Structure formats: C-alpha cells, structure tokens
C-alpha cells in the first residue's frame, strides 16, 4: 500500500479543489422510440455535481435515473434512444457537442462508471488483472508488465486479500463483494474527476453493501472525486450523500441537502418514499406504500406526473406541469440548494 501513497502527489497536483463545479446537466431530454410510440424517459433533468461532492439520485425503477447516467457516459443505445435537447457540461464544455473520439478520451479517464451487476460487467474470458490493466494500456499506453503491476496495486487499494496471487483469476472465481471491489478498482484506476455509480450495492447482501459503500466513500474523500450515486435504497443514501435529487417519471421532483430532505421533504412523492421505509417503532402496523403505479412513460399524465397517486392533488396539478421552484422557509428566506417541483410545496413543507 506504500506504492499507492508514492503515486499520489503527482495525481494530487492536477486534482481539483473541492467545490469546483464538475458536471452540470441542463434540461436534458431523452426519449426512446418503441413500437408503441415514443417513451419519454428523461424530461428535463437538471443537476450538478462539484468536486468532492456526492449527489444521490433517488427514484423508482423506470424513473430515468439510469438513462440519465448512460447519457452522461455516452453509452446510451442510439437508436432506439434519442437525446432531444439539453446540455451536459463537464468542466464547462458541452459533452454532447464533442466528437466520439473526444468523448472516448473522457470516459474512464475523467468520468468513470461503476455498474450494478459486477459479474455480468466483467468479461468472463479475461482475467481480472488483465481487465484492470487494460485501463492503463488503453489510456496511458502502459506495457503488459506495468499494467499488471498497477492492477495488483489497485486490487490492494480496494482491499482484495492476496492481490498478487489473485491477479490472474477470472471473475467467476471471486465472491460478489470482491467483484464489486474490482469494478470499483477499474473505475478508480485513472483517478477520474467524477464517478457515476449505478446502484453499486443492489446486487450485494447487506453486510457487504456496507463495506462497499464505506470503501467508496473513503476513496472518494481521498481523491476529492465527484460522485453520482444512483440508487433506490434510501438507507444507502443517508450515510454517504451530500445532496439528493429525487426523480420521478424522468424529471427531478426535489433536490435538497441530504439531512434536510430526510427531516423535511418538500414534495409529496419524497414524503411518500420516506414514509414507506419500515420502522422499528411501528412494529405490527401495516407498511405504508404509495398507492398506484409509476406512470407509463408512453403516456405521462397531464400536469404533474405524480398527480394520480398524490393525496393532495388539486385541479391545478392535473393541468399544469409544476416548475422546479426554489423552496423558501417560513420567513420567506431561500433555503440553499432546496428545490421542489410541486405546486403545493409550501403546504407540503410547512403544513
């Protein structure tokens, strides 16, 4: 592990100061052409991440969180996918306007991604050492030998025991948690500015989940990376995230610093999500669930997409799409970083 320490100063020199804006997604729209019509998967997503910051993107399946991430990475299948409008600014440059080659150079080096299912995301016929080393060979033109040495170092870094002996093993020979560590190591290899983790712990059991999240948080703090954590697990988010963006039907419905969101949601959907967490002190009672189903993306309801499932919905909610309002406290002062896409945010937050 000493080798890792020696390597750091050079990398740290180019590292961005915490708080420097890294990624800014602006009004992104993505749709998919299907046989039954156009599915609007992402309908105007706005979010931003700064260096050293963790943004958690929260939402049900089909809310567009993964599609947004894939669009940022440039790995969206096009066709059937189509980016209809929006900007993705990475350090001020719009990635959607870059050439394929420019984008390829950013992938892995500046922005890396951790996938949900590590077993299917690792190539079964190549040893993990080869796959880790590939990062250095692709981006830095390292030799086979150097790449192998760096692969071992990386495996040490994510605390895989006996790294030097296991470097030639194949993915199926590792346990689920170890495989996810290897995925993390691959994403970390070139010390990118931003890591997008798409449900990194969903495929793991609970004890391993905690280990992996701790590791991720620790490495992120060490490298001052930006982290976008995509998840549907509210428990995972609370510990590691700085701010949260809640997505519903392809839109951000609420953004807030993590503790404020938990304490005081400003959107009925967030409120419903938080209420549906099982609680020990309510043992014996029925679990709460938001009634209804997530909307069909081919036919998003008019007005607020959440209105058919919302207890507080009014006629306004059924006709007009709410903008992402700045949220104010009771005295009318702005609450930093808090926005809600609800006509009734005041009632939801304060009353």
């Amino acid at each position, binding site marked *: 592990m000493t080798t890792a320490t020696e390597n750091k100063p050079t990398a740290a020199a180019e590292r961005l100061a915490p708080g420097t804006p890294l990624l800014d997604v602006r009004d992104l729209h993505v749709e998919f052409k299907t046989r039954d019509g156009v599915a609007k998967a992402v309908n105007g997503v706005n979010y931003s991440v700064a260096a050293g910051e963790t943004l958690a993107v929260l939402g049900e399946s089909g809310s567009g969180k993964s599609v947004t991430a894939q669009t940022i990475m440039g790995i969206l299948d096009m066709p059937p996918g189509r980016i209809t409008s929006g900007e993705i600014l990475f350090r001020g440059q719009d990635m959607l306007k870059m050439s394929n080659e420019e984008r390829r150079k950013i992938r892995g080096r500046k922005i890396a*991604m951790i996938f949900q299912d590590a077993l299917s995301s690792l190539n079964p*016929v190549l040893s993990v050492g080869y796959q880790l080393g*590939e990062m250095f060979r692709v981006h830095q033109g390292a030799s086979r030998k150097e790449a192998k040495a760096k692969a071992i170092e990386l495996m040490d870094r994510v605390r895989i025991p006996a790294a030097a002996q296991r470097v030639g093993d194949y993915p199926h020979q590792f346990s689920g948690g170890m495989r996810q560590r290897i995925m993390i190591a691959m994403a970390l290899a070139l010390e990118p500015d931003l890591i997008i983790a798409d449900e990194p712990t969903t495929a793991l059991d609970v004890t391993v989940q905690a280990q992996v999240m701790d590791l991720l948080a620790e490495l992120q703090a060490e490298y001052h990376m930006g982290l976008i954590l995509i998840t549907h697990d509210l428990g995972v988010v609370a510990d590691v995230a700085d701010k949260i963006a809640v997505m519903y039907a392809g839109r951000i419905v609420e953004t807030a610093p993590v503790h404020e969101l938990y304490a005081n949601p400003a959107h009925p959907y967030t409120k419903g999500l938080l209420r549906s967490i099982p609680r020990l002190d309510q043992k014996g009672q029925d679990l709460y669930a938001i009634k209804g189903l997530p909307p069909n993306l081919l036919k998003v309801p008019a007005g607020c997409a959440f209105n058919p499932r919302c207890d507080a919905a009014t006629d306004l909610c059924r006709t007009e799409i709410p903008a992402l309002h700045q949220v104010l406290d009771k005295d009318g002062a702005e609450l930093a970083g808090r926005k809600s896409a609800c006509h009734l945010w005041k009632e939801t937050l304060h009353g």
Partner: protein
Amino acid sequence: MPDLTDTKTEIPAQRAAEVPEAKPEKARSLGLDAWHDLRRRPIFVISALLIVLLIVIAIAPGLFTSVDPRAGDLRTHFLTKPNYGHLFQPDWFGYDGQGRSIYARVIYGARASVVVGICVTAGVTVLGGITGMIAGYFGGWVDTIVSRVTDIFFGIPLLLGALVVLNAFTSRTIWSVVFALVALGWTQMTRVMRGSVITVKQADYVTAAKALGAGTTRIMVKHILPNAIAPVIVVATIALGGYIATEATLSFLGIGLQDPTISWGIDINSAQKVIRTAPFALFFPAGMLSITVLAFIMLGDAVRDALDPKLR
C-alpha cells in the same frame, strides 16, 4: 491519506483465511477448460489420433510407402488383386486399371484432401469471421448489406457454383479448388459469427468496457471476439469434413483436381468403370475418404460439446 488498515472496513478474518485454501485449484481459461474436458472423451481421442495420422501422411507420404504412386506397369500389374498379407507393401491394396499401386495412391491422395480441408476452413473462418464481426458489431446499413450478400450466396448451390468458378480456371490445382470453396462457403461463417457477435455485443461487460474508454477495435478484438468465437470454431471443425467430401465430389465429377494430382475423388471416378471386376480399386480410396470425413466430423462434435455445452 487515511490508514487503509483501518479496522472499521477491514476484511473479515475468515475471508482472508479462505484464500490459501482456494489456491491449489489453479485458474483455467476457457480454452484450457475445454482441453481438460476433451482429453477425457474417447471420441475426441480416437478422431484426434486419426487426424494426426492423416496429417503426418499428408506431410510425409514417403514414410509410408516407397513406391511412386504415378508409376504404372500395365503388363504385370493391370488390376492385380490385393494381397492382404503384405502389410504396407505396394500390393497391399492391389493395383488399379493403369497398373499403379492403390496403396501408394491412397497414401499420396491424403495430401489433397487434408490441404483442401484445412485451407478452406481457415479461409472461410477468417473471411466469415471478419465480415460477421463487422456486420454484427456495427449493425444498421452495414449489417443489411452483408446479410443480403450472404443471402445471395446461400441461394447458389455449392456444387453448381463451384462448377462455374472452377471452369474459369485453365489448369486446376489444389489452390483453385480452395479458392472456389472459400468463395462460395464463407457466408456460412459470416452468419454464425454475426449472430454470435450480436448476442455478445449486448453483454454488460461490453458496455462497461465502453464506459471505461476502450476504443472500437479493442472492444471488438479483446472483449467480443473471445466470447463470440466458440460457435464459429464448432461450425468450422464440423464443416471441415464436409469440405473434404466436397473436394472429392468435385474431383469425381471431373471439375475438381485433375491428373497428375492425386486425389481420392479422381481414383474413385476411375475405379467406378471397373467396379464389377475390381471392386477393391473403388473400396480403398472411398474407405479412406469416409474415415477422414468421419474423423473430422467426430472431432467437431467433441469440440462442440466441450466449448459450447448448450448446443448439445
């Protein structure tokens, strides 16, 4: 930098303890795994030994007979009956209608069959593999064009097509037969490869490689090819026997190899005229041809079982 041996996130002790135990079972790659499996199959062992023998015969026929297969003595040897006791002697299998040793001709005829079989297989695998990879990976109009071209080739009957192609050559050698068979047969491999690449392309690890910045060539060669090649190898080994049979068929029909090249097909053709008086002249080249084709097809079967158990 925080101390990485921090107790909070340290790996549980039993996990570390598992590792030395797991060590004796050395990691095996897919290829090694297949080999491990193949070694224990009698069909594979028998067919592999036969094929090795055939290849040795093809490379060095002089090791098995000292007689010139083209030297005929009509006066003393015209359709002389075989002398089965004389193992490996010129008269072991008898003499043909031109007084040539059938044993020597069977031995020397192996070369044409083996060379045609192997070269055609190599040719169609490379050509079909590349076109199939391109069509499968890029999709869209590239795929449409390649797929329509393979459809057109599938519409041409192999023998009829080979007849036309080979007629264009003034003198036909082994290489013109190889050329004709590759030109007409590559589309079979294109189809197999294309289908296989399309399946593999959708795998998460391909997306992951893309997300980590690998370029198109690297993704194709390092990530897709090793995962997509197994069905192609299987089809190729099974098809090899078929190509050998096709060469013999073409030579039999008189549009494949020509005298003085020695081929089992040519010998079968000349022997059919004397089938009533000297059936042995037909039996030995035809028997060798059958054994050879069978050996390759059995090998293909065994390789398929080892590489792709799902196809069984």
